[in-house]
Structure formats: structure tokens, C-alpha cells
């Protein structure tokens, strides 16, 4: 019996399982980026406090640090593995591909995590209890460890978009996969955002300080830091989009930017005005405004940004060799990986998937709709909701009112031929295509 390594399906109605990962991921990005940005800010403040003998800055660091522990090291440290968990439930082969390529990179990042977690507690609780010079070294170490976690994760996330060159497909070497052409622009993009976030969160703490002069001074400094971060984001973003693979660029330029571009420009303008306000009138930044702005950036800034990045990756989920629906799209000689597409076209998903009940292995008139529904779940549900009118990319709505024969033609002539560059061009045996079309025709009315 011939099988391919497909896993059981987890499907969350109306939303789709993959979007659950997006939600967890967006929360994690807010928290983790803040933590790295704040680590850099700590090093800067500790340096200043030590060189200029400014003990009041230590109080600020302590307050910021406690907030950071709760925000970043509770939420951030849990949602980090949380992305793994949700990604595993939604795209097991996608996460497996990353793990089996980058396990040692992740293990290295783990070493820095340990240093970070012990570091943040040590850093906060030893303020005023150890000599300042040693404390300064501790903040340097903490900042370096935090930035190193970024260095280590960035190549993995960049690989999800693409390895950048053909080298990895031939060598299979993790370093060829890790250091692609968009790794460095992506790294600077994230560093800029981290610096920006450290200022945005820093405002929450500085605005709550009772000492007015210190409050104004810190708010102004944070505004400058935020501007540096924001400018880095803008410049790196322009660099980053130039390093995308062609179909991602087309999708970004023709579809996503056309749809969301104005929102991005508005959010960038709002942030710029906010930072200018903080610099010119530092006392106008109160805690309520600071919290609201943080949420605005989180909801309007991060979530659509991540959605955009995720959409640009389509139809792949990792390394441009695994499709979103978990099928292996191409050969990777360096890893002895073989494409599964020809086998799927010949035998069909229902014969090759190990987790199919026996009565659905062969399609009959009696089980055709049930089989069609299952094929839709296997082949489409990673990107599409299967309910008509559902929140995210509802599949039935893509074929409004069409009959089974027309849908079948679209599946074979448009989808399977790769006309839509963001949809996996999967050829299925005739009986599976007919079953899928028949089921869709019952859902789109």
C-alpha cells in the first residue's frame, strides 16, 4: 500500500485552523518584539545612569522591568511555544520541515532564551543590590542575548517565505536555508520594529512617573528612539519587498498593497505624529493615551502586517517546497525529498492519506458528497473556511451559484494549471475532482 505522510486534520469552523496560529503569532510578536527592544533600551539607560551617575534612571528601569516581565515574559514566553503548538495543529508537515532543518538553530536560540529569562529576573531584582558596574555588564549581556534570539529566529521565518537562492535545494545545508537574500532586510525590519515598540511601551511607564522633569526627559528620549526605530522599519521594508520571490512580490504589489496599502500609510502617519507629539509636548502623553496607542499599533499595525506576510507566502507554507495543504511540491535533492504531486495526480488523496476510513478510499455515488467534503478539508481548509459566508476566505463563496460541471472545469483548467499563482496547482484523479466539485456545488447556493 502506497501512502504519503499526511496527518489527521484539525479544522476550526468559520475561521480555519491556520488563522488561529495568526492570532497567537500576532500576540507573540507584540510581546517578543517589545522584550528585545526593551533589552536594548535597558542597556542604553543603564549606560547613561552609570556614566552620568543618575540613580533615578534605575527606578525607571525597575518599573519598566516589572512591566516587561509581566507583558513579555508571561505572554511572550508562552505564546512563543504557542505558535509551535498552533502551527503544529494546523500545519504539522510545515512545522516538521522547519524543525528537521533548523533544530540546532532553535536549540541555540533556546540557550539564549534561558539566559534571557534568568537575566530579566536577575537584572530587575539586583537593582540597588549589586554594584552598578556589574549591573551595567548584566544589562549589556541581557541586550546581547535578546538580540541574538532575533538573529536566530529571523532566518527560520525568512526561510518560510523562501530560502532566497537555489543553493539549499541542492546542498540541504541549514546555513544555505537560513541565510537567504531576504534574511538581512527582514532582520533590520524587525530590529526597527523592536526599537519602535520599546518606545511605545516605554511611554506607558514614563507617563506614570511622578517626577515631572524626569517624565519629560524620558518621554522625549523615547520619542527619538521611536523615530529611529520607525525610520529603520520604513527603510528596511522597502529593502525587504525587493528581496521577495516573484509571485510574492506580484501578490504584494497587485493585491495586498492595493487593498491594505492606505491603512499602512495611515498607521505610519499616526505613529509619526504620536512620536512628534511626544517629543514636542512630552507632558501630553498620559498613561491612557499610551495604552490606547499600544493597542492601536497592535490591532491595526501588527495583525494586518502578519496577515500580509502570511498571504504573500502562498501557496507555500515553508521553503517553497511544501504547500499550505501539506503536500510536498518539489524535489529537494540536498535532503533527498521527493515531490508528491505526480503520485497525488495518479492515485488521489483518498488512497494516499493514511488517515482515511476504509469506506472512503474508493468513491461511489453513495459516498461522493462525503468524499468531496473530505477532499475539500484536506486540500483547501488550510487557507479557506469551508462554510459559506465564513470570516476568512470562505471556499463556497469562490464559486457562487455555479453547478458541479462548471466548478469541475475551473478546478481542472484554472486551479490545477497554476493560473492563480497563490493556489497550489494540484491535479487530482477525475473521480476526486468530480467529488470535490459536486460537494462545492451543494454549498454555494
Amino acid at each position: 500500500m502506497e501512502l504519503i505522510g499526511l496527518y489527521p486534520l484539525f479544522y476550526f469552523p468559520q475561521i480555519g485552523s491556520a488563522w488561529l496560529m495568526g492570532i497567537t503569532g500576532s500576540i507573540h510578536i507584540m510581546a517578543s518584539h517589545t522584550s528585545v527592544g526593551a533589552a536594548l533600551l535597558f542597556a542604553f539607560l543603564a549606560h547613561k545612569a552609570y556614566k552620568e551617575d543618575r540613580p533615578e534612571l534605575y527606578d525607571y528601569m525597575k518599573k519598566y522591568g516589572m512591566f516587561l516581565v509581566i507583558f513579555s515574559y508571561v505572554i511572550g514566553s508562552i505564546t512563543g511555544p504557542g505558535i509551535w503548538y498552533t502551527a503544529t495543529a494546523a500545519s504539522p508537515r510545515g512545522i516538521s520541515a522547519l524543525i528537521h532543518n533548523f533544530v540546532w538553530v532553535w536549540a541555540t536560540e533556546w540557550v539564549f532564551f534561558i539566559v534571557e529569562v534568568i537575566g530579566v529576573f536577575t537584572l530587575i531584582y539586583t537593582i540597588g543590590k549589586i554594584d552598578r558596574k556589574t549591573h551595567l555588564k548584566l544589562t549589556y549581556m541581557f541586550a546581547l542575548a535578546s538580540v541574538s534570539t532575533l538573529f536566530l529566529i529571523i532566518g527560520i521565518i525568512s526561510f518560510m517565505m523562501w530560502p532566497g537562492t537555489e543553493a539549499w535545494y541542492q546542498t540541504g545545508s541549514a546555513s544555505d536555508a537560513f541565510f537567504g537574500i531576504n534574511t538581512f532586510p527582514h532582520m533590520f525590519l524587525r530590529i526597527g520594529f523592536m526599537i519602535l515598540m520599546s518606545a511605545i511601551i516605554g511611554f506607558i511607564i514614563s507617563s506614570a512617573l511622578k517626577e515631572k522633569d524626569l517624565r519629560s526627559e524620558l518621554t522625549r528620549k523615547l520619542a527619538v528612539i521611536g523615530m529611529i526605530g520607525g525610520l529603520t522599519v520604513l527603510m528596511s521594508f522597502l529593502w525587504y519587498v525587493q528581496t521577495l520571490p516573484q509571485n510574492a512580490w506580484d501578490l504584494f504589489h497587485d493585491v495586498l498593497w492595493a487593498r491594505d496599502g492606505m491603512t499602512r500609510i495611515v498607521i505610519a502617519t499616526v505613529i509619526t505624529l504620536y512620536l512628534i507629539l511626544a517629543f514636542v509636548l512630552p507632558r501630553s502623553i498620559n498613561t491612557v493615551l499610551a495604552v490606547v496607542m499600544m493597542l492601536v499599533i497592535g490591532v491595526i499595525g501588527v495583525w494586518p502586517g502578519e496577515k500580509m506576510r502570511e498571504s504573500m507566502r502562498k501557496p507555500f507554507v515553508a521553503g517553497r517546497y511544501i504547500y499550505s495543504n501539506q503536500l510536498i511540491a518539489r524535489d529537494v535533492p540536498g535532503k533527498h525529498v521527493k515531490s508528491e504531486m505526480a503520485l497525488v495526480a495518479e492515485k488521489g488523496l483518498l488512497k494516499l492519506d493514511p488517515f482515511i476510513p476504509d469506506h472512503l478510499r474508493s468513491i461511489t455515488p453513495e459516498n461522493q458528497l462525503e468524499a468531496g467534503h473530505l477532499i475539500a478539508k484536506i486540500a483547501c481548509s488550510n487557507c479557506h473556511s469551508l462554510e459559506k459566508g465564513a470570516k476568512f476566505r470562505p471556499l463556497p463563496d469562490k464559486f457562487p451559484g455555479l453547478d458541479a460541471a462548471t466548478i469541475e472545469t475551473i478546478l481542472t483548467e484554472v486551479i490545477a494549471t497554476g493560473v492563480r499563482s497563490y493556489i497550489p496547482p494540484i491535479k487530482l484523479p477525475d473521480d476526486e475532482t468530480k467529488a470535490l466539485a459536486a460537494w462545492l456545488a451543494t454549498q454555494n447556493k
Partner: protein
Amino acid sequence: MDIGLVLNTLRDPAGVPFYPIVFQALYILTWALHIAFVLLALGGIPLALIGNAKKSIDDNWKKLGAHMTQVAKISVSILIVLGVAPLLFTQVIYDANWYVTNTISGLWVVAFIYILILAYSLWYWFYYANKNNSPIAGLVGVVSLLAFVGAGVLMHAFANESIQPEQWMNWYAPNGVIDTSGTNLHIDILRLAFMVSLSAPVTGIFLLNYVDYTSKCDGYTATYLSFVKNLGKKIATVGLLVSAVLFAVWVLTLNMLMNPLVIAIVVAVLVLLFMVIKESNSYITTLVLVVTALLISTLREVIRMNIMSKYGYSIYDYPMNIDWPTVIMFLTTFVGVGFTAVGFMLTMAWRAGRTKGIYTADATVTKLANATVGITIIWALIFLLWGIITVFKNTL
């Protein structure tokens, strides 16, 4: 369903990037470290809650409760970060098991994250509420404990489901009807009870460490130290006895009572019992506890290997594509950065905790601090250089 064929088909086609036995050893080691902090948090939280409840009538409990609140708080952070490693290594060699579990229990897998966030956030709330003598502190703490226990039960269920491949199809498609809701949850109550019971000896022995450390610090009276010592001894003794009974019953159901590893664990537990009762040096007792944890972690792995070998699955014949550059990166970082940085922070914290007033770093701590910063800078430079060379090599 040919389970062996399925298990071997589900292996990642990219293979593993190093010898499987190394991942296995790292899994055993890091799981033992992770579970130690899970158990400490699980044992520390009830003590903190009792301390909160009794703080108005008993100064000893008040002080201990406040300290255990902090211990639990830091333990949870550490258990999370230590938990990443076994999660990583199990996915490399037992990917089939872990991923099937994560899909058939997908909804619980997602819920786990948010339950843990809720539990930990509530614990911080309890910490501040307790500090401010809020009347709802106790309630918040109890809900936090329940949420932590819930998260623990879920994690146990995932591990339990992963070693029952013969049940996967029944759970995923009962009576031939596929269920993609991800709501499967199957626990082994005996195994769970044994694992949870270990929180008592771990916490009891921790209290003995706490007494030994704080006895050399200012602000701890003999009465208080004696109270904590007696409490720790009692919790450890009763906990070891209960754990031993549960362990015996559990391994009996597995027909492994005479397994050499099981016997070694029983001996280790007896040694621990003896050391606790005789009030031996608590740091040495902790070392024996660590060895016991490693033996238990190894037993879990032996159980899993036995089950998998029944179906013709062996991690040792997983196809390999060794990736030396990243292997070397991990090893040098683990030893160079990890040991130096953690050594620096723990040595400094240990010495600062015992110093009255401000601690000024001595020569050893200063050397460690300088080495840590220097090594991390060198690490970053090498990493960036490696990246730039690779990009140039592959694009020009």
C-alpha cells in the same frame, strides 16, 4: 491500518540532522530539568496559598507564603523556557507521535496556551493582591492553581495519546466518521497521579535547600528556620512514600516491576527517604533528586521505545542528513555562552543574596561578567560574518 507503515511514512522526508541518540539523550535530560520546575511550581503554589490564608494569624506562614509566591512565579518562567527543549527534541525523533496528537487534540492544544497565560497572569494578580492585602487574593490564587493544574492535565493527555498509535484512528474517525474538531482528550489517571505526587518530595527538598541557604542570611530567625525545616521534612517524607506507592502500582500495570530501571528508581527513592529523615546535607539530597528525575525521564523514554518497537518503529534508523555547521553552532553556544552566562548570573545572585547591603563583585564574578559579555559579542560577530559570507557565496 498498518500502524508500522503509517509511523514510518509520517517521518519527515528531510531526515534528522544528527545522530538520533543524541536527540534522545537531550530529550531525557531537558525533560527532567523541565519537570523539576513544573513540580516545584505545583508544590509551591499551594504553600503560597496557605501562607496567604494564614498570614494574619501566623508570621511563619506569612513569610513562607510570600517567598513561595516568588518561587512559584520564577519557577513557572523557568519551566516554560526549559519546556521548549524537550518539545523541540521530541518533534525531531518522534514527529509522527507528536503531530498526530496535536491534530486530533488540536482544539485543546490551542486552548493549552491560553489556559497557561490565564494561569500565569492570575498568579501575578495574586502576587500583587496578596501584597496589598486584597480580600480576593485567595480566590485569585486558587483559580490560578486550578488553571495551572488544567494546563498540566492537558500536557499529560498529549503525551499519553502520543504513545497509543493503535488508538489514533479510533479517536480520529470513530465508527468511520472523521472528527476534525480536535477535541480528543485521553488521560492515564495512574501515570498522572504519580507525576503530580512528585511535586511533594521536590517541594519538600527545596524547602530544606531554602533553610540551608537562608540560615546564612540576615533576617531569618531560628524559629522560622526550624518551622520551615520541619515542614519541608514532613512534606518530603510523606510525598516520597505516596509517590513510591503510586509508582509501584503504575509500573505493575505496565508489567515492569522487575525492570532494572524501575529497581534503580525504587533504590533512589529509598536513598532520598533516608537522607531526608537523617537530615543530610540538603544540597547533596538535591543531587540525588536530580539523578532520580533523570531515571524517571529515562523510564518514560524506555516505555515509549518499547511501545514503538512493537510496531517496527525505531528512532535509530531514522534517515540522517548531518548538518555540521549548525551542530557546531549549538555545541559552542551551549558551552561557551550558556555555561558562562548562567554561571555568571547564578554566582552573582547567590553571593548578592548573602551580602548585607550592596554586593560588590569579587574577582570571580567580575571575570565571569567580562567573559560573558565578550563571548556574546564574539558570538554575534561570527554569526553575522557567517551569514554575510553565505549570502555572498550563494548570490554572486
